[in-house]
């Protein structure tokens, strides 16, 4: 970072809201990691720590009627889309108060009320779904955007290429949000792709592209506002690459043998919360006391969610087969 950080080009109130959003995700996931250690949360747990600026910047650029499709690293997206921390945390615990009544867990958060379509644990699996949601909007004459999040690992999947082509061919309003954190689990981009310019891949399908510093929440937000507007106006897809970095391991089982500690430390210097806070302070929009208060509120929110999840109940095993099929009258 330079000595004098660039001022934040957003209204103060919005800037503080973005900071609070990032803090909520950070504290929520730190709590998740601790709860994982306590074995309250089991299964796979993929933390978004380090990447918070992407979800925090994009989500407030979307409208309530838009649809969101995300990945298995989606706690932050779910929280900022408007799902309550209680319903997300209870789902992580596997409790019946969870958004999916304990059926989904960390990787499968869903919420019909906010049009949050998961929570997809197959890399690239959400892209065709997003294309179809946008197709439904188009065919029913609804002016909406479907935001589809995926990692750079997904661009190696056929689903990425087929979806990019179909969305461009049929001119469907999908905002493709590629969260490029440089590693597909443990495989670096350059070790898996002959073409590491992700925008070039999307551009080859005639899809307009944006490359954004995904560590800068203000830049992400501005780009997302522009991108959503462009998708609405053109009625066609747009591909935005958010360059970001995962500070934690891929999952709780990852010993991180594939990257240097020095590289991680270097990226941490660009930490989205740390730097954004410094900028807000430098321009006199945030005092240390105000920061601590925002952080305290985030922590409090998370503790309440954690306590509620702890107090939650288990879905009776007798209801195991519920919701495999939609109930219908007997023949």
């Amino acid at each position, binding site marked *: 970072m330079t000595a004098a950080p660039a001022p934040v080009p957003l209204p103060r109130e919005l800037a503080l809201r973005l900071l609070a959003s990032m803090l909520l995700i950070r504290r929520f996931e730190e709590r998740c990691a601790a709860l994982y250690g306590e074995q309250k949360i089991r299964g796979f747990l993929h933390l978004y720590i380090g990447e918070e600026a992407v979800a925090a910047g994009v989500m407030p650029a979307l409208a309530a009627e838009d649809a969101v499709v995300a990945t298995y690293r989606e706690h932050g997206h779910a929280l900022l889309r408007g799902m309550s921390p209680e319903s997300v945390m209870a789902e992580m615990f596997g409790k019946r108060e969870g958004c999916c009544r304990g059926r989904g867990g960390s990787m499968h958060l*869903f*919420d019909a009320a906010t049009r949050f379509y998961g*929570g997809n644990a197959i890399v690239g699996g959400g892209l065709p779904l997003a294309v*179809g949601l946008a*197709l439904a909007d188009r065919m029913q004459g609804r002016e909406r955007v479907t935001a589809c999040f995926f990692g750079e690992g997904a661009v190696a999947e056929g689903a990425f290429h087929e979806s990019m082509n179909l969305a461009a061919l049929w001119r469907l309003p999908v905002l493709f949000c590629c969260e490029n954190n440089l590693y597909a689990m443990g495989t670096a981009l350059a070790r898996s792709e002959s073409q590491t310019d992700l925008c070039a891949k999307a551009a080859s399908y005639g899809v307009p592209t944006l490359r954004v510093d995904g560590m800068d929440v203000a830049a992400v937000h501005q780009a997302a506002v522009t991108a959503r507007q462009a998708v609405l106006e053109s009625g066609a897809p747009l591909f935005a690459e958010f360059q970001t970095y995962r500070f934690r391991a891929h999952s709780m089982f990852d010993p991180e043998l594939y990257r240097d500690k020095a590289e991680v430390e270097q990226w941490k210097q660009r930490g989205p919360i740390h730097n954004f806070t410094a900028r807000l302070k430098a321009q006199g929009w945030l005092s240390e006391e105000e920061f601590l208060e925002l952080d305290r509120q985030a922590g409090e929110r998370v503790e309440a969610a954690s306590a509620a999840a702890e107090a939650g109940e288990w879905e009776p095993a007798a209801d195991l087969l519920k919701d495999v099929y939609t109930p219908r009258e007997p*023949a």
Partner: protein
Amino acid sequence: MTASSYREALRQAHREALARDPRVFLMGEDVGKYGGTYAVSKGLLEEFGPQRIRDTPLSELAFVGAGIGAALGGMRPIVEVMTVNFSLLALDPIVNTAAALRHMSGGQFHVPLVIRMATGAGRQLAAQHSHSLEGWYAHIPGIKVLAPATVEDARGMLWPALQDPDPVLMFEHALLYNLEQELPAGAGEVDIRRARIRRPGRDVTLVGYGGTLEKSLEAARILAQQGIEAEVIDLRVLRPLDDATLLESVRRTRRAVVVDEGWRSGSLAAEIMARIMEQAFYDLDAPVARVCSEEVPIPYAKHLEEAALPQPAKIVAAVQNLWGNR
């Protein structure tokens, strides 16, 4: 009564669905300009326009997945995957998303989607174009699997399938498209929950579906000349299986032969035999038998392909064995 082909009946079913419900649309490879690989959708593009009859790129994964998304978005898509062979390229969206979504989302979302595809062998198309993998799909909780084997079912299964709130897969045996049968005037919706007895008989129950129904009926005609009256059941619904119809028949005839074009190991036939054994063991006079495809990639040469598939003569022999082994 008017004569109709299976193909025409399917086309009429599509026409009816498209006319009745503006949310219904058809997409798939060559369904529009080409008129459908098996000519099922011939003329529909002209009648309903390119918004509702959508030619797709050769992207099974994307257009099946997009069908799921469109269903979630309030449409009632019919996705035609040209053949079951190519559906392997769309296994992920079918199994990991369409089938699982309702349960995995705690009942918040459901996927009212119909996926149609041709299945089966018998046209010398060799290993990569001759699969009968409907049994695989029937393994998956969360989806329903239909196998229309008659013109009446080709005409009547699509509309109720579209009314179903959950994903429905329809398997059309490729040899059936030219089948001609009488169709009552005003034929329409049929039940999609029950198996049907297509030929009553007292001595043995033959259980077939899709492409093996006609072969089972042919075997029954041969057996009748030998004094064995075979009852022939058309499963129609491969998931969830209609155990009641099946067991009622087997308890009467006390013998059963399952006829399945899938390979023997881990087959739908195996599941049906297991259910009979679990629920009607003490009613049986002979072990349940089956006639399946031989465990070989389906070969090209006509005599080899015929040898690989269930045939009336094999069914007859299997039935005769039920007494021969006594």
